[in-house]
């Protein structure tokens, strides 16, 4: 283990963030659901080892943009995406891209905890198994333990790994889903309102987890809670009516935003 103090780690991360390469680049991204246009030429870059929060009123396109990042919109009929999104240098909408592999690199956690109706162990081992990430049982045990450790759930479930994942509390289920996402060693984790079904204590645990995961992953989170965006993110992007209104450092966004619409939204005022 290295002996860096907590603040030194934070500092190193912030340093890493400030000269951060862009992990994902969205250029002129537009999305149509049939005739209806949901996103208008969004240019938004996701920085590496950074938590980026997407905020905005319902229907503003933030979840739509999030789902573009691992092609979840492909599953929606009539949905068409234009523009270009790259992960590192790869164009993720390229014909040659294997979508299953893409979703292993860009994992996702949903609003409602959705563990498989299987054991806790199997919930975690499923991904690594289908992706062929482990050679033998011992290897898999190791992946399951490490994933649960990282998700801060190991201590709570280590004696009941073979009980059903759906028997856990809501907050534990959500951390199980995060552990499941981590198990396939993604580079980016997308979270769509991961705490909206959780109580404040479970929310705090998930937020603490997001904070820790930042060291190893790039995280994009959609949230309706302005306070949550302020608490967990380093960058915040504000969407309104399908457009990206403003993207800024979170500190700046919540003390002195540049755009009047951002100001009105975060302060809870009529525009």
């Amino acid at each position, binding site marked *: 283990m290295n002996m860096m103090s907590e603040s030194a780690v934070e500092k190193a991360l912030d340093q890493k963030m400030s000269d951060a390469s862009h992990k994902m680049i969205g250029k002129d991204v537009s999305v149509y659901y049939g005739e209806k246009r949901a996103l208008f030429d969004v240019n938004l870059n996701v920085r590496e080892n950074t938590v980026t929060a997407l905020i905005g009123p319902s229907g503003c396109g933030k979840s739509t943009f999030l789902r573009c990042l691992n092609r979840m919109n492909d599953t929606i009929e009539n949905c068409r995406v234009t523009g270009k999104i790259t992960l590192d240098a790869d164009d993720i909408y390229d014909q040659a891209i294997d979508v299953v592999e893409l979703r292993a690199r860009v994992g996702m956690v949903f609003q409602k905890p959705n563990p498989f109706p299987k054991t806790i162990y199997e919930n975690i081992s499923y991904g690594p198994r289908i992706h062929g990430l482990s050679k033998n049982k011992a290897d898999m045990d190791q992946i399951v333990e490490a994933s649960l450790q990282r998700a801060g759930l190991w201590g709570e479930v280590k004696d009941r790994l073979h009980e059903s994942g759906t028997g856990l509390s809501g907050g534990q289920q959500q951390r199980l889903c995060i552990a499941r996402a981590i198990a396939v060693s993604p580079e980016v984790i997308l979270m769509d309102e991961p705490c909206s079904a959780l109580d404040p204590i479970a929310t705090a645990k998930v937020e603490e987890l997001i904070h820790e995961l930042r060291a190893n992953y790039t995280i994009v989170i959609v949230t309706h809670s*302005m306070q949550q965006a*302020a608490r967990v993110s380093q960058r915040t992007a504000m969407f309104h009516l399908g457009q990206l209104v403003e993207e800024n450092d979170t500190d700046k966004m919540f*003390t*002195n*935003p540049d755009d009047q619409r951002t*100001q009105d939204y975060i*302060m809870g005022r*009529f*525009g």
Partner: protein
Amino acid sequence: MASTHILSAYDDELKYLSRRISEMGGLAEQMCSDAVRALVNSDAALAQKVISDDVILDHAEREIGDKAIVTIARRQPVAADLREIVGSLRIASDLERVGDLGKNTAKRVIAVQGTGVPRKLARGLEHLSDLALVQLKDVLDVYATRSAEKAEAIRSRDEEIDAMYTSLFRELLTYMMEDPRNITTCTHLLFCAKNIERIGDHATNIAETIYYMTTGAQPEGDRPKDDSSNTLGAITE
């Protein structure tokens, strides 16, 4: 504030803070002007009133502080709202200090009552206090309109008060050197002059706070300083 909050109770809380600050400002202004008037007219009754008024100001500052804390806890304000509330706290504490300075001046009325204040010095003090009170009054008007430009303009005016204070300081020293029997009175007057000069500084602080509340940035450049009394040691000819 162009638009209103979706939650009207939130607006009411912010308006309450703003109204109480204006009230505090009005009272602080009155106290300081009364204190100087009591001083030049040797009016002990008026001085006593200033001293007792200070309690109201202290009380108001505590109330604003309590209300601001509750609003922060309940509303989790951000951006302009947060700056507004933090600004209210700062301004309330500046105004409370202004009240203390007025009170301190009033307390000295009794000490100089015996000898009275020499006419020439009285005029100097009145002039200094006029400048400081105009500064205070203007800054309170700017608070009502939240104009960043006007706040910046007021900030640059503090220079005049500092220059006037330095000249009064020089004059008081001369009096003391002329006749050692003047020393007691002049020392009290020196403190009074300093009190008044400090009122100008608080008005400048308030101007800077208003600028910050409105723009989210600190005003640029150092605040102008022309108080050279601290280096004015040896003017013995």
